[in-house]
């Protein structure tokens, strides 16, 4: 036990350790600051040419409920055109003044630079924002075509229909209630980044282990079970970064609930330790381990859902530990796969430690 504490103390002695501890919270604070500012998945310029009731209402609606987009109001369609061409805007909407007096025949213009699925979505959003006004005019038109005299506008306005029809669900509902709400989309990669960070910590721990092995640290450290010594060694190094990770997730607002998070991160740590020891025993050199760092980063960034979900890779992705961890947050199925993977890798590294060791 003392030996592990001494190992830990040795880590703390390096001044850079404080830097290492600070860098994660610092990054999260910066990300929080960034996401507090105004931003949007798409920045859309809107030029509403009319100034009747419908136009004012539409303007107000876009400003009050932007959803995930960001709307910037323009008075002049030419300025807006210019901004679209020069990439200040993703697209521009020109809504003519017929919105106020002839909505059923109105035609809006959408200015884009390049065709893409996102523009299809934005088109649907535009149409759905105009739709309330359209629907009202439409039923009035319908009614007058059929020969009924009246104007149904008042009735239309007064009917209260529940608007909240759809809700995103998760497979592991209980763990997710916090995250379902207003986390800025900018903070979503945070968990992935921290998972990568912990993985790198495990690889760096391997390098540290090799250095110590070369320096003969383990000659004087007798133990019956080499595997336990190895596990303890890694655990001491990974402990603080793992705690920092949990704190970081909390600070960043993507924390779900305490016990599930704790279990998942412990399983992840065990998996990382198992894999790191196996890889270390195979590669046996600090140099080669170092060369593997970018490979691990790149691979995990692509194959696990840090920034993108590369679904075509299918089951190949299961090699990467961060894949299991990130998916396990909302889907217990992956907690089980992670635990099994961790179990297998720990058993293999145990066998390697006991029977294939080269030093003491």
């Amino acid at each position, binding site marked *: 036990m003392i030996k592990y504490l001494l190992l830990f103390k040795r880590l703390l002695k390096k001044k850079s350790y404080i830097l290492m501890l600070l860098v994660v919270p610092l990054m999260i604070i910066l990300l929080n600051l960034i996401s507090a500012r105004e931003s949007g998945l798409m920045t859309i310029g809107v030029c509403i040419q009319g100034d009747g009731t419908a136009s004012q209402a539409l303007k107000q609606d876009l400003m009050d409920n932007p959803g995930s987009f960001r709307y910037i109001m323009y008075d002049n369609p030419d300025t807006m055109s210019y901004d679209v061409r020069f990439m200040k805007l993703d697209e521009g909407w020109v809504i003519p003044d017929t919105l106020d007096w002839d909505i059923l025949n109105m035609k809006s213009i959408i200015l884009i630079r390049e065709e893409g699925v996102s523009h299809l979505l934005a088109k649907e959003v535009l149409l759905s924002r105009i739709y309330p006004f359209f629907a009202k005019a439409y039923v009035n038109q319908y009614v007058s075509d059929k020969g009924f005299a009246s104007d149904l506008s008042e009735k239309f306005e007064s009917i209260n229909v529940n608007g909240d029809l*759809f809700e995103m669900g998760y497979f592991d509902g209980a763990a997710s209630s916090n995250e379902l709400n207003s986390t800025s989309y900018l903070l979503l990669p945070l968990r992935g980044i921290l998972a990568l960070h912990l993985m790198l910590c495990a690889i760096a721990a391997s390098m540290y282990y090799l250095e110590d092995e070369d320096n003969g640290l383990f000659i004087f450290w007798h133990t019956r079970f080499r595997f336990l010594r190895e596990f303890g060694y890694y655990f001491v190094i990974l402990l603080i970064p793992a705690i920092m990770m949990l704190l970081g997730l909390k600070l960043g607002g993507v924390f779900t609930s305490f016990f599930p998070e704790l279990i998942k991160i412990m399983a992840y740590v065990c998996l990382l330790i198992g894999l790191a020891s196996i890889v270390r025993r195979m590669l046996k050199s600090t140099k080669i381990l170092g060369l593997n760092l970018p490979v691990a980063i790149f691979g995990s960034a692509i194959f696990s859902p840090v920034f993108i979900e590369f679904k075509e890779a299918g089951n190949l992705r299961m090699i990467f530990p961060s894949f299991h961890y990130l998916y396990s947050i909302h889907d217990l199925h992956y907690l089980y796969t992670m635990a099994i993977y961790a179990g297998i890798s720990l058993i293999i590294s145990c066998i390697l430690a006991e029977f294939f060791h080269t030093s003491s």
Partner: protein
Amino acid sequence: MILLLAVLFGTGAYAVIRDGSYVENQKRYTLGYVGAADNSLLRSGVFLLENEDSAKEMIELKEYENEDDAKTALRAGEISAYVVITKEFMGQLDALANGEKLKYYATSGQKGITGVMMDEIAAVAGNIIVYTEKGILSLDQAMEERGYEEQDRILQMTDCFNSYVDAILNRDSKVEIVSLGMSDGLSTPAYYFTTLMLFLFIMIPFCGIWFFLGQRDAIAQFLKAKGLGPARQVLAEMFAFYLLNIFGQLFVVILLEISRVVLKYDFATLLKIGFQPYMLLPAMTLPILAFTAMGFFLLDAIQGVVNKVLVTFIIDIFMAYVAGFFYPRVFFPMEVQMLSNLLPSGAALTYVANQMVGGRLLEPAIVLIAYTILFTFLSIMVRKARIKL
């Protein structure tokens, strides 16, 4: 190792160019649905969506027998999301009363950008349903006030509903799309190709991390005794480090050229701009210099291999993220977009992108050179302090 990296890079490029960003991908969203078997309203809706509606370019529908099949498909990545349509929900919709919510599952992982897009789609669908209902209900109320029989009202409402559906199907006629052309910007594939390349070169200094391990202080003092002061030591080491990274770049370019010639990848069409891999060599030299200097400083100054790796990684990935390497720059607030040009990563992106499309090179070049000088200077200071000890 660089080979492996290059292979990974290739896969990554493939993944990203195919997947694009969540905002600009060319792939449709695939929506699975469960539970439509015995509802005629839903079946006709599905038919319309699959055949008549313009949304079929954006969404593809897939039916599943039960929720478990849909779940498996979601986990395997065959669909982007699925909905479970319950009898209660359909009953409500039929009765135009909305109490129950419909759940859609967009990922088995954590909420990501796809999830956010799905929210938008859900809001669109919700809006259309709600206001159509309002129209139909107001008709119903008016008829009730006039004393019409229920039978007549139902007939009329159904007719009104069909009329609305026609109008909704024809909504494309309400919008005219004008494409202004890609005059001054990178296409999406070119953008991600560039950012991935740059991310690769930010990470490459890690390959040389063994350079910075071991008894560095002793060697530094020894060299000083032999007449090589801190400045010359740092410059020499950094130059060697730079050559290593240039070699990496050369390797990647060669691989890309091979893929162009042998596998016939036409980068010009893939990336939609006139670009050939060998053009990367001059384009990337200055960014790689800046990244080398930064990597050198961080890996040298920080002590302890664990700390080196973790701090450098967090700094690198934060800079890459905020400069728009993974999500488009426009995702970020305006202030961040402007400030990111002052970061090495952002300046590098602007520099390389402008070379591809003919924009200004001076400002980003100045930033990159400034960072190179700054980090070299800082490294010399650190080395000086180490020698003195």
